[in-house]
């Protein structure tokens, strides 16, 4: 198709969606939503979780069929019969969760489901050549015969995009493409976005990150509760206004961090190492020392894979005895070898992947919110469903959990509400020290703001918090102190006053206080 080479005409709409409606059973998820996309523009689709963005995208991608409304693609009626049909019509979607098969080669992934064959047999030579060409088109040169799992996550994200474009897409949808990428990888992605834009491809971009909206968007459409709030060019939509559109009310300042209430020392790590890959491998956390006091938020900075998550896991006992060094909680030695011991000592751990390690998705809100507190809720082993329900209600109420009923399965909740259930689970226990690993990943602006307020409330009550976040503004604004890790070592400890984005980034690249030679840039 020669379309990609055609010059973009800024005014023509590639895609129009008019009056789209969608119902799941009795629930209306989309109501009279209209949306249009021009060639060569980046159109950001914004809105809180549960606003209907994903449903709209799924309709576009042919996963769902709308209950009402019409779609046109290049002026022709567009009603995809399924995802494959959508792909062939030139609509490509890069999903939030990667859809690549890890053990298969890059080329095989690219042509999965539409293999190039000769007499029924896969024509590997032609596939490899085509795959190389497709990836070179987005500035990616790599060995297409290698398994996808052998590449770092950032490259995988690019391969995913390459896969979407292998079928010569005119409309490309990206659903939070940077959520798993580090700063450097995100830069590569932005460059690619610019490239595609220049080729006349229309991009629908979904993100929760304000920086990305500011940087990439040509136009912005905001959805709230299944309705379109409005569409505006970015220049005409200042950030405060955008947030107001999304949340439906004024939010106030973005990072409401109050003064710290630092009290007694809660946690002291001295020369703490974690061997998450086994004793023989290089330690993923290497001799880190840090302290957390009551009423304090300590931020852990660093690039992806710098060891923050492993530090938390090791401290919490998730890696068994594969740690060394000393850890003390409230002055008492605390080298935990099982999460249970850590919980008993007053620790709680919100992992960075709530689906994989935080929640039992098939089960109800009550089930998940009471999971860690089972021993107390079931004296002599026998459960008391009514007490559990009351406990779940009590734990979720202050978090403003939005759910039809506490018997809803957690898997049906939006990301922000899921995160609230995880937090509720731990708050039930009244922990002293809360470990938060990317607590705002994949949750919307309103929910983030609520979480920040909660952090403040908790620290005011004397809880200590150790927090990892890959969002620089959040790290800078919410932390009382920042410990920056680089390849498992602490390279800088900065107070809130000292910390700037540049200093944190420099330390994250290995040029911190200890000033080690930079070697971080390679995945």
């Amino acid at each position, binding site marked *: 198709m020669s379309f990609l080479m055609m010059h973009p005409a800024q005014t023509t709409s590639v895609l129009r969606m008019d009056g789209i409606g969608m119902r799941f059973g*009795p629930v209306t998820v989309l109501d009279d939503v209209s949306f249009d996309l021009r060639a060569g523009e980046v159109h950001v689709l914004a809105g809180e979780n549960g606003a209907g963005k994903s449903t709209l995208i799924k309709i576009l991608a042919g996963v769902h069929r709308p209950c009402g409304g019409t779609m046109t693609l290049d002026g022709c009626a567009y009603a995809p019969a399924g995802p494959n049909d959508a792909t062939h019509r030139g609509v490509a979607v890069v999903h939030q969760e990667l859809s690549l098969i890890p053990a298969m080669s890059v080329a095989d992934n690219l042509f999965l489901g539409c293999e190039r064959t000769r007499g029924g047999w896969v024509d590997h030579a032609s596939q490899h050549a085509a795959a190389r060409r497709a990836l070179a088109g987005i500035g990616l040169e790599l060995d297409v015969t290698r398994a996808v799992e052998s590449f770092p996550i950032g490259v995988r994200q690019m391969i995913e995009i390459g896969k979407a474009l292998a079928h010569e897409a005119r409309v490309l949808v990206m659903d939070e493409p940077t959520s798993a990428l580090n700063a450097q990888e995100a830069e590569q992605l932005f460059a690619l976005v610019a490239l595609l834009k220049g080729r006349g491809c229309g991009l629908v971009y979904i993100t929760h990150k304000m920086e990305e909206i500011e940087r990439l968007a040509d136009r912005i459409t905001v959805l709230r509760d299944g309705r379109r709030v409005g569409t505006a060019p970015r220049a005409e939509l200042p950030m405060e206004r955008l947030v107001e559109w999304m949340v439906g009310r004024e939010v106030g300042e973005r990072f409401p961090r109050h003064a710290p209430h630092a009290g007694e020392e809660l946690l002291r790590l001295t020369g703490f190492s974690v061997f998450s890959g086994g004793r023989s491998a290089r330690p993923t956390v290497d001799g880190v020392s840090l302290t957390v006091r009551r009423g304090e938020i300590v931020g852990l900075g660093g690039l992806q894979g710098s060891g923050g998550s492993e530090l938390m896991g090791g401290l*919490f006992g*998730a890696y068994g005895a594969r740690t060394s060094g000393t850890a003390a909680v409230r002055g008492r030695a605390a080298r935990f070898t099982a*999460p*249970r011991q*850590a*919980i*008993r000592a007053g620790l709680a*751990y919100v*992992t960075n992947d709530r689906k*994989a*390690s*935080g*929640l*039992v*998705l*098939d*089960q109800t809100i009550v*089930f998940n919110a009471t*999971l*860690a507190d*089972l*021993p107390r809720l*079931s004296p002599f*082993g*026998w*459960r008391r469903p009514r007490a559990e329900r009351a406990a779940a209600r009590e734990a979720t109420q202050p978090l403003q959990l939005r759910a*039809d*009923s506490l*018997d*809803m*399965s957690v898997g049906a909740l939006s990301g922000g509400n899921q995160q609230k259930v995880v937090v509720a*689970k731990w708050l039930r226990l009244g922990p002293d020290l809360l470990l938060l690993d990317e607590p705002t990943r994949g949750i919307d602006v309103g929910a983030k703001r609520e979480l920040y307020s909660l952090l403040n409330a908790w620290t005011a009550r004397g809880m200590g918090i150790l927090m990892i976040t890959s969002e620089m503004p959040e790290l800078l604004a919410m932390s009382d102190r920042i410990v920056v890790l680089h390849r498992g070592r602490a390279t800088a400890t900065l107070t809130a006053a000292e910390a700037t984005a540049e200093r944190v980034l420099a330390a994250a690249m290995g040029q911190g206080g200890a000033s080690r030679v930079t070697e971080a840039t390679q995945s």
Partner: protein
Amino acid sequence: MTDDRDTAAMGFAGRVFRWLGSPTGRACLALALVLLVGFVFHADGAFYKAGTHRDALRQTSVYGILAAGMTLVIVTGGIDLAVGSVLALVSVCFATLTIHWGWSAWAAVPLALLIGALCGGASGLAVASWRVQPFIATLAMMALARGLAKYASGGMKVSTAVQEVDGAYRYVAVPAVFRAIDTRILGDNVPVVTAIFAVCFGLAWLALARHRWGRQLYAIGGNEEAARLSGLPVVGAKFAAYVASGLFAAVAGICQAAQEQQGDPEAGAGYELLAIAMVVVGGTSLMGGRGGLGLTLIGILTIGYLEKILSINAVPEAGRLMLTGVIILAAVLTQKRGR
């Protein structure tokens, strides 16, 4: 799941329809279909006799006991292939103890249960502590227990004919405990075996639905890592599930021996698959974390009645196997639709 306002608005038909869409509704639908077949092909009225239903329940009791234990394991995302062999081992040991050695039931039953628990414990240790895949670990136990059963019995059935040193046979009476288990109570209406099944089932239901341990099993099956990080005793709870499955297999073994009046080292071959089928037809997911004993009960009745109906109609073996396969597939397919 059901919102009160919605339900009220939907009316009766709507509610019924919604219930039929739930896992319980789907499982009940399968059972109803099987029973319908019974009403149509009633074999000269045999299906309407109370005795037929009593027998159907008695016949399915041994499988049901296995399926109850199996549910506990499957909820954790595991599987226990060893139950059939453990049943044989326990039946052989129990028969040897009571018939040949003349032990009293008070000593023989606890020992038989202990043997079952040990077998289950060995599987559990391998799965929970050594992280062997449940399929492999219990496959090994399946072979091991079968071998032990053959070794303990010398490959022969342990019956009331006891061989003396000189090779002659001495006949002993059937032990009282066998007679006690293979009889009927409550005005000759309920087979003791069925009552044992009901008790086992009730215990398993209590454990899974009302005990902390049940929660732990669901959490492990749903998301083991989340369960571990929430401080649940993952290893212990899993281990206990396999021990329970072994215990239930031992109970089934005792019932089997009592009903056959002998210990057969070949007994229970293929029972594990039937027990798994019952659990799955009920709608409990083999992936773990979803389902429950209520569903398993429906599955047990579905397959139990199917067997009975085919039997009273004297359907030839080939037809039975084909029909059973079709029914299992159909039942599982209707459940898949729901997701």
